């Protein structure tokens, strides 16, 4: 009975629905994109309508919002934050800088393509993305979760070596605890 395919499927649907309806975002303003998070979360755009709310620590969070560029110094902390998060977890890349460097394409201190270092589920275009765009990003993520396609964490687990290599390339002094699954 328990192993019944249909039962599993129903559990999956319920789980995915719950995951989609309750997205807790770790409160980490990594870049200047953080400035459009308050309007998104507060009364004018009210992202809580979608069950999106902030969470103070990575342990409790589902979504890591990379709000723009990441300096190498921040990247180190972001990786740590990401690895502290519990599965299933999602990453949203926010703004041009996460895609191809944005306006910091020639800066010596920022990474240019986020997906080389962390598995990104959704990219949102803009510099800054407006609150509407941010919400669209979340809606896209919800769709992916509902369809069971937002499996960035899975990808990370499978390709950990590759990610580690890329991460070590830019983080010179790699003093980090091992990833505990």
């Amino acid at each position, binding site marked *: 009975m328990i192993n019944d395919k249909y039962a599993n499927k129903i559990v999956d649907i319920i789980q995915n629905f719950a995951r989609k309806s309750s997205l807790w975002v770790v409160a980490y303003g990594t870049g200047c994109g953080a400035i459009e998070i308050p309007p998104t979360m507060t*009364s*004018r*755009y*009210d992202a809580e*309508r979608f069950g999106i709310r902030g969470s103070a620590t990575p342990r409790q969070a589902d979504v890591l919002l990379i709000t723009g560029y990441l300096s190498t110094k921040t990247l180190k902390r972001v990786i740590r934050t990401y690895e502290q998060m519990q599965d299933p977890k999602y990453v949203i*890349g926010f703004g*041009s800088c*996460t*895609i*191809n*460097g*944005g*306006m910091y*394409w*020639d800066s010596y201190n920022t990474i240019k*393509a*986020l*997906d080389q270092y962390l598995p*990104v*589920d*959704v*990219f*949102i*275009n*803009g*510099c800054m*993305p*407006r*609150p*509407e*765009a941010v*919400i*669209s*990003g979340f*809606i*896209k993520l919800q769709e*992916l979760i509902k369809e069971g396609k937002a499996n960035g964490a899975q990808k990370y687990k499978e390709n950990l070596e590759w990610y580690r290599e890329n991460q070590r390339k830019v983080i010179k002094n790699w003093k980090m605890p091992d990833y505990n699954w």
Partner: protein
Amino acid sequence: MAVDLKGILSPFSALKQGVKPPHTVRFPREKKETAERYRGLHFNDLEECIGCGSCATICQNEAIDMIKIEGFETKDGDSGLRPRVDNGRCCWCALCVDVCPTGSLSLTKDYIYVTDDPNAFLWTPGVDNPDGKEKISFTSEEGKPLLDYQRIPMRELEGMERVKSFAEVVLGYDEEEARKEAARCVGCGICTEVCPVHMHIPEYIFAIGRGEDEAAIKIIYDNNPLGETCGKVCTRRCETVCAISKRGEPVAIRWLKRYATERANNADLIEEIVNPEILPPNGHSVGIIGAGPSGLTAAYYLSLRGFDVTIYEAKDKPGGMIMYGIPKYRLPLESIEKQVGYMQKMGVKIKYNTAVGKDITFNEIKEKHEAVLIGIGFEKPYELGINGEDAEGSIQAINFLRMVNSERPVDIGDKVVVVGGGNVAIDAARVSRRLGAEVTILYRRRVEDMPADWEEIEGAEDEGVVIHPQAIPLEILTDENNHVKAIKYANAEMIPDPNGGRPRPKIIEGDEHIIEVTAVIAAIGQGADYSFIPEDIMEKIETKRGRIVVNEKQQTSVPWIFASGDIANFRADAISAIADGYRAVKGIEELLLKKEK
């Protein structure tokens, strides 16, 4: 224990907000319209765009690439490339919009672009959003342009002041003006496409802008040894396609060239600045017939490449049409002498007063040289074909100009009619004004149909030349001494061409007038005179409508004969002749050096 009762209770007044309707924008259910100026995704009007790449240059994020798009070819005034924005770089500052010379690039109200594929952020405006035109928000039209659309005005002599002498009308830019004017250039290089010589225009303009005039001169001399001439009299096709000209006045490319080349005011100085690399003699010898612009150009570059070059010139001065055909107020004599002087320093040999066919035969030249370049120009004027044309006082414009330029006396009296609408006609008219005559131009078609440069036409009008369009001369009336007395002409109306060609003038019957004149100057065109070429050779040379047919290296159907200048192109201006000369160099080089191998 003091209790701040107000402080404890007043916060609770906030609870009354609970009954107010929330002001939340319930996106995506409700959509708030973005502002009229919102800076969203790009849109590019692909037809308007000329692919100048200014957007790509200004972008501090290197977000814009110029790429080839299906259906757009490189052609005159269009590089054939179109911008593509990397939205992973863009910051929507819209500098690209404000800098766009054509105004084709703009931003739209769309901004949502969400995907899980990081490689999907390359955005070709206009291709990826063909409907973007309806959503345009941030345009360059609304603000002030970033580029300078106003040309630095060229100082000129006052119209009535000019006619008193043959002094150069255009005074030229001073240093500050030149820097400012050069700074207007966006450096796209679209101009080089249409320039027959493909001069390195953006480069020398940039050099001028940076105050490096010598570098500019060196760049100009790289493929045009008559840069100064061009700086004064070029027909400057480049300016018609200038990116800035789409919405403003084009960069004064000609005047800037003039400014730069004039900085080197003698042949020695040119040599010092240009200091070209001269290859050691390679033992080959080339003969050039005619010391016009094409011949001189070819001779100069052939000399630099180690060829032994001799020019055979029928007249006593070099330059051909630029020497004799262009009035001195546009191109002073000294200027040509300076430029030719420099070429002679570089090893070009010119035999003056050596008319081929008269002083030396074509076959002799053939014997002496391995290759021959013919650049004789159109020297034989067309006749009006009306009665009285052979009367005294009826002159051909190019003869008239030649006489004036070689300071031989010409008597045209005080009332002149010029027939024709080309540059030669205008030149003749303006020269006549300087000789003290009242001048009327009779032209078959409308003023806007005149092939002459509008600047020239305006200049003529400033100087008091009367232009009488749609007038067809019928007869030149003479007095008893067979001297021109008057000209009879009829007014014409324009008949549209049923085949879609340009409208043709048709004489209005009976609408005939007579003007009293002391001279009639005909300027309705010229042709070439190939009589010096032996018939057996001439037979082999393919011609078409009076011009010699050449390949892209100016080679005629007889391999060792090259042709350049007016006799080989339809443009009939100095810069095309120079271009021909430059190309002929490559042809000759190929012919002779390949043979060696």
